[in-house]
């Protein structure tokens, strides 16, 4: 019961955050010195045509009216224009791409499975790799193993994803040719092929992100292993493996989880560079596309969607945190 009240409170405050994000997006994107109507006006574009298009898209209104319409559209849907030429965007309407002729929500729905496949798989992989190497480094503290892992993690943290990505493509797709160099296959069409296509993107993202997890896990584990309760566990004759993997790791994982939630939430909003390198049509590619074509409705819709994902991820992390750490009481700040 307590947990439901807590979730309710968090959802309410999240809604406020989302509203503020929407406001910021509108201020940034719709006040840019570009006229969205201009882009859809066609050529040649007379002032009459332009104002007609602007009226059709609703961009002739003041920005706050536009924002009101946009927000209303999310809940009740909206219709652009009137009569036979009217374009209907059903709720939840996150905007309408006049360039692609599709509602933004539909675009997101199409692209999200691709991004989610990349993100979730990579996240699981990097969590396993990062935590395992982090624990290993902590146990082998100040030995050659520790230093090697730390050195590698510096490379991982600092290398850009397109570099690692392209190197992987060259190595495993072009030279040895064991994995496809790009593309995406729906899971429902062919699960094996789906998996096969995703291995390289997963590896790229995992190598990059695991490095950070190695470091934070190492630091946390070293800290936890020096705590008093570890000595208490030893004094009971608890085997060292149990001390490390049960007593210390559970405590060490708490901050790791916070980081994981944020990273995963952010990645679900679009793995821009990785999608580009492996030519996958995910949310990242959609965002990139909309930026280069100044498709502002898509940009706002996709960004808002990403923001909501981060907020949800955060909420899930906080709930998990309270389940893992009894000292954290939900609903008390």
């Amino acid at each position, binding site marked *: 019961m307590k947990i439901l009240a807590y979730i309710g409170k968090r959802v309410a405050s999240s809604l406020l955050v989302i509203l503020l994000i929407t406001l910021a997006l509108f201020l940034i994107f719709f006040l840019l010195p570009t006229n969205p109507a201009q882009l859809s006006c066609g050529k040649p574009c007379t002032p009459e045509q332009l104002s007609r298009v602007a009226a059709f898209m609703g961009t002739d209104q003041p920005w706050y009216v536009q924002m009101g319409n946009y927000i209303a559209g999310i809940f009740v849907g909206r219709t652009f224009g009137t009569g036979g030429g009217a374009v209907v965007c059903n709720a939840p309407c996150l905007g309408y791409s006049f360039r692609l002729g599709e509602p933004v929500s539909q675009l997101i729905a199409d692209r999200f499975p691709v991004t989610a496949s990349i993100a979730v798989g990579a996240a699981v992989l990097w969590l396993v790799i990062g935590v395992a190497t982090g624990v290993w480094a902590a146990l082998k503290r100040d030995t050659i193993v520790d230093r090697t892992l730390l050195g590698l993690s510096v490379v991982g943290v600092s290398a850009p994803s397109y570099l690692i990505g392209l190197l992987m493509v060259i190595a495993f797709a072009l030279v040895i040719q064991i994995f496809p160099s790009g593309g995406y296959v729906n899971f429902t069409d062919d699960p094996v092929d789906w998996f096969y296509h995703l291995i390289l993107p997963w590896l790229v993202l995992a190598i990059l992100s695991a490095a950070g997890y190695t470091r934070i896990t190492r630091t946390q584990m070293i800290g936890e292993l020096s705590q008093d*309760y570890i000595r208490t*566990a030893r*004094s*009971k004759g608890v085997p060292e493996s149990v001390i490390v993997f049960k007593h210390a790791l*559970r405590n060490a994982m708490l901050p790791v989880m916070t980081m994981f939630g944020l990273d995963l939430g952010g990645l679900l909003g679009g793995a821009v560079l990785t999608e580009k390198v492996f030519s996958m049509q995910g949310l990242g590619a959609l965002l990139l596309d909309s930026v280069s074509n100044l498709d502002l409705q898509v940009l706002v819709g996709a960004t808002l969607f990403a923001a909501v994902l981060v907020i949800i991820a955060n909420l899930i992390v906080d709930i998990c945190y309270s389940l893992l750490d009894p000292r954290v009481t939900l609903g008390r700040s």
Partner: protein
Amino acid sequence: MTEPHAIVTVDGLSVSFDEREVTHGVSLKLYPGRITALVGESGSGKSVTAMALPRLDPSVATVTGHAYLDETAAAGTGTSGTSSGNADATGRDIDLLAADAPLQRIRGEYIGTVFQEPSTAFNPVFTLGMQVAESLKYHQKGLSAAERKAKVLEQLREVGLDDAERVWSSYPHELSGGQLQRVMIAMAIINRPKVLIADEPTTALDVTTQQAILKLISRLAAELDLAVLLITHDMGVVWQAASDVYVMHDGVIVEQGSVADVFRAPKDDYTRMLLAAVPRLHVESPAAVPSDPAGTDVEAHDSTFKTSDTTGSDANANTPTAETSDPIGTVATVRNPAPESSDPAGTVAKVHEPARQTSDPVGTDVSGREPAVKTSDSVGTDGVTGTDEERAVLGDGERIASVEDVAVAYKPGKYAVEGISFDLVAGRTRALVGESGAGKTTIAKVVSGQLAPTAGRVLIAGEDLARAHGRRKRTILSHMGYVFQDSGSALNPRKSVAWSIAEPMSVQGGFSADEKRRRVLELLDQVELPADVADRFPHQLSGGQRQRVGIARALALNPSLLIADEPTSSLDVTVQRRVLDLLHRLQCEHGFACLFITHDLGIVQEVSDVITVLRHGRVVESGATERVLNHPRAEYTRTLLDASPKIDL
């Protein structure tokens, strides 16, 4: 009749860190059913020595020497109540420090360990039940989860946690320190080890809780024939609980013997100094206080405690050496100023009736909740104040500060302190006494203007502190010095000592650099520190030196009021002695009023003229120190007094 047989014989144990030897060939013996104290100041090597036995020393330490665990101890584990201590050892003892020692069995099965800080010694994310059961899991492997739980619950009840089911499913942060320490003891003895190492088990606890825990350990030692190694820095604890003592200094045992012998006739200079430094509480017999039902209850606690102590010597009496068992018997009598001391036969009767002790209802009481929680305060909320009596002690000196009916609420209706009134008089010291959470520091904060009272007011030299702001408030505060508890963190680590001492002058303004420097040197001289300390940094000083710097800073502006918040509680006893002497001398010279916060009644008796006893944010009793300590009117004061270690020779 056989020779007393040591269960653990430590022989030439040395511990080194990075080639640097910190303990040098320590040898000691532990006997079944007896509490042996290893006492010393910080850095003496007492903890390192004790922790080396179950090899819980830090991994960088190198341990040499031998520590033999009697073979019977290993044989007797896992079954409760088997008596060891008989001398038919076959000589196949286990060397605890050998490379091939069965570490996992030694830890938990042969030796149980209780640590200092119960709040950090448990894993915060697991239930206490799981953590106690874990102790069983790796030693008594055949048990099912349900059997383990049953055993744990039984053990929890045995150490006095009556609602064992609730404790089972609680997390560490949900219990008090005293309760946690009971759980820790349960965890340590659940496999019925023959040896219990207790590393400062009561240092983090309030005095009434300390007493209850020490009683519990004494009772278990007697009942389970447990050899207890009690590590402590507190001579009062040694006196209260142990029968034998080893005094350690700079990694060497400087003196050993029965507690009675060592306390009465210390042979080593260091032991003498240590004993002389302990602030001792001298009070008239608490039994002189006329009948009060709860009061007798408290005394009964005490007598049970002493009984179990005597039982310790009884266990020894099975295997007596004339010179050890006899003095301890005497001690038991000497330590009982209460009626039974006049009845030597009573003591004897108890020695021969350990069973009575178990069936004693008070005995169960002792093992129950902390007495402080349980004892109802008949005095009520208004407390006992002896205004006339205080006036008699304080004389007609200048009233430096008046606290008038002060209350502080953190939430509406939730008072941290309430109805606090007292005066602080020039040249006199008022002690503010109470257990943790009593509101001592809250009051100090109100008096020093760090916290505005929700109700009531604080007048400093006639001015209302809460109404003053800006420069006026600064001027009022300039008449006030504050000495903090933790000398280590109360000084800015990146600033020199001179800067820290001069800071109050810098804040007030109006002092030239030369004036400040001169004053700093003068103050250093007053607190008996060499002038070259001025340009050093806090980390280059010892704890005692840092506290002197803290006092020098507090005195920088010649305050008329000094607030000292547990100024010596983080210091070793010999250092504490010197700091207390210093404070006393400074007060005589400068004549400031002093508000001295402490939980140690021995210190109170030494430093204060009047005393205010607090409990749960209210004044329980207030009056002249000697009267309050010798003839307490409030029941809670009596409880505190009773729980305080008293070294009576």
